[in-house]
């Protein structure tokens, strides 16, 4: 219990116009863990994060960061956290070094300015005005100020948006190194590969709720793998061996292409290929694909539309049945 650095219970946030952006979110993050909040735009990621950062009081539920209420007891929390908002928030007429100096003066245990800039690769840009920086450089300046106090907990709201592929890799390495040195990290992203690469655990948000959460492998494992192919003219799905015996849970035929979904990919693929060899059938454009986070993400987004009450992996995958076209008995 002492090592739950972030603890969120039934969190709600309602904006002035009555829009309920966060509708009962619960999760916790342990010390040294890297937790990703994943979701489409408008899913409620930033709204949730701002409550954890103590920028607003929740409409309902409870937040604890390092054992404190980050809004009511901000003085007990602020010097131990680092925050990177979705948009930078630096005066455009200050130089990079002046910006970092200002933040260093306001932050306990601040690193030297040069070191803070070196970490994010902005050492050579220290004399440049913020308004002249590229979007990616601004993002890295933001990261430098978030890291300047060597925080125990780091909140990163879409840390790599606007970065090129190389900048993204560098940020990933930096964030991973911070995690390895014991920093607890909570990040939001809409890049699936970012969550897949970095996160120890993740939660997929949709319309203000958590639709699925757990370790990346577990969330993915809840999703079926795919085998898809085209049958030669004159062959039909009914000519295949009984699908249940192959471990196929659902199938679909779209435009002459057969799509099998299975939780036992090896058994299904082996059975199918042995049948094809014995029947001397050529399977056109054969594609055998393990479940991916992307698949999980898309299915959850679609499924949640049909079942707004979905929460937790079990409920979400149950709701996924809504989109099943045909289910093998």
């Amino acid at each position, binding site marked *: 219990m*002492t090592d739950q650095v972030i603890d969120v219970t039934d969190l709600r946030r309602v904006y002035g116009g009555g829009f309920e952006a966060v509708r009962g979110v619960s999760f916790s993050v342990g010390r040294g863990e890297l937790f990703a909040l994943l979701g489409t735009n408008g899913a409620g990621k930033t709204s949730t994060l701002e409550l954890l950062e103590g920028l607003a009081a929740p409409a309902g539920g409870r937040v604890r960061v390092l054992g404190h209420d980050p809004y009511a007891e901000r003085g007990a929390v602020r010097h131990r956290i680092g925050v990177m908002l979705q948009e*930078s928030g630096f005066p*455009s007429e200050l130089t990079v070094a002046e910006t970092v100096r*200002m933040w*260093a*003066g306001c932050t306990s245990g601040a690193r030297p300015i040069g070191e803070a800039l070196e970490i994010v690769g902005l050492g050579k840009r220290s004399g440049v005005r913020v308004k002249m920086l590229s979007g990616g450089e601004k993002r890295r300046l933001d990261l430098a100020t978030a890291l300047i106090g060597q925080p125990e907990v780091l909140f990163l709201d879409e840390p790599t948006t606007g970065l090129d592929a190389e900048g993204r890799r560098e940020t990933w390495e930096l964030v991973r190194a911070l995690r390895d040195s014991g920093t607890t990290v909570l990040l939001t992203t809409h890049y699936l590969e970012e969550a897949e690469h970095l996160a120890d655990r993740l939660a997929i948000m949709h319309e203000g709720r958590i639709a699925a959460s757990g370790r990346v492998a577990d969330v993915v494992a809840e999703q079926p793998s795919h085998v898809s192919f085209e049958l030669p003219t004159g062959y039909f799905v009914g000519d295949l061996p009984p699908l249940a015996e192959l471990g196929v849970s659902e199938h679909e035929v779209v435009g002459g292409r057969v799509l099998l979904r299975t939780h036992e990919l090896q058994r299904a693929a082996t059975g199918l290929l042995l049948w094809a060899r014995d029947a001397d059938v050529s399977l056109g454009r054969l594609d055998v694909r393990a479940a991916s986070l992307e698949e999980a993400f898309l299915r959850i987004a679609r499924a949640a539309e049909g079942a707004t009450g979905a929460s937790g992996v079990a409920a979400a995958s149950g709701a996924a049945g809504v989109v099943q076209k045909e289910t093998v008995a």
Partner: protein
Amino acid sequence: MSTTTMGPVATTTPAGRMRALARAELTLLGRAKGTLFAALFVPLVLPFSVQQAAKGMDLKGTGLSVGTVVLPGAIGFSLLFAVYSALTAVYVARREELVLKRLRTGELRDPEILAGAALPSIAIGVTQCLVLAVGCAVLLDAGVPSAPHLAVLGLLLGIVMFAALAAVTGSFSRSAESAQVMSMPLMFASMFGSGLFIPFEVMPDKVASVCELLPLSPVIELVRGGWTGELSGSDTLSALALAVAWTVVSVFAVRRWFRWEPRR
């Protein structure tokens, strides 16, 4: 409380944090040429135009001299241009650039952010007042204040009041441009109604009794009284009470209405 729940202690102080913020704001002020010009020169140049008018006024029997008409007015201009108008622009610009929101994620507390951002403008205002006081004493024979504590008290209340009014005005402005427009009503009302050009003593009584209630009026009255030493005890008390009331209302309005983030 067990030691496991105790984290490391914050090592920054409110003064240190505000100094860091004020330093950045001073740099920014130096780069905002338009704001800087208006804040620096308008309050120093305007008194000379007032001086001409004051020389033509019938000041006999009012206990005033050209110097004690011009100086409080000049200090009023300093509060309006160097503090109020300049700070309104600063608060709006920082909010729209999301600087205020970002600062609130750090160790600075809300009042420290507002005060730290205000320090350079306030420093300019105070420096101007000193320059004006010396200038008027030497050039216009305003003399040495007979009740300096009243002048200082009036100035301090005026600074806090107009810094807070700047924050309030900024909250109702969507952009730096609209901030200039939004600050106009109070600027004009103060210039013509608070005794900057025309002392209350030479206004018609009915007009004067309304104008004396404006926020800048008790400040000017205290400063002028500080120089002439002719403010009666009851006048001093009522001016102080009014200045304190405006200051309290302004600070309350900031707490109630200040916007930290742009409207979406």
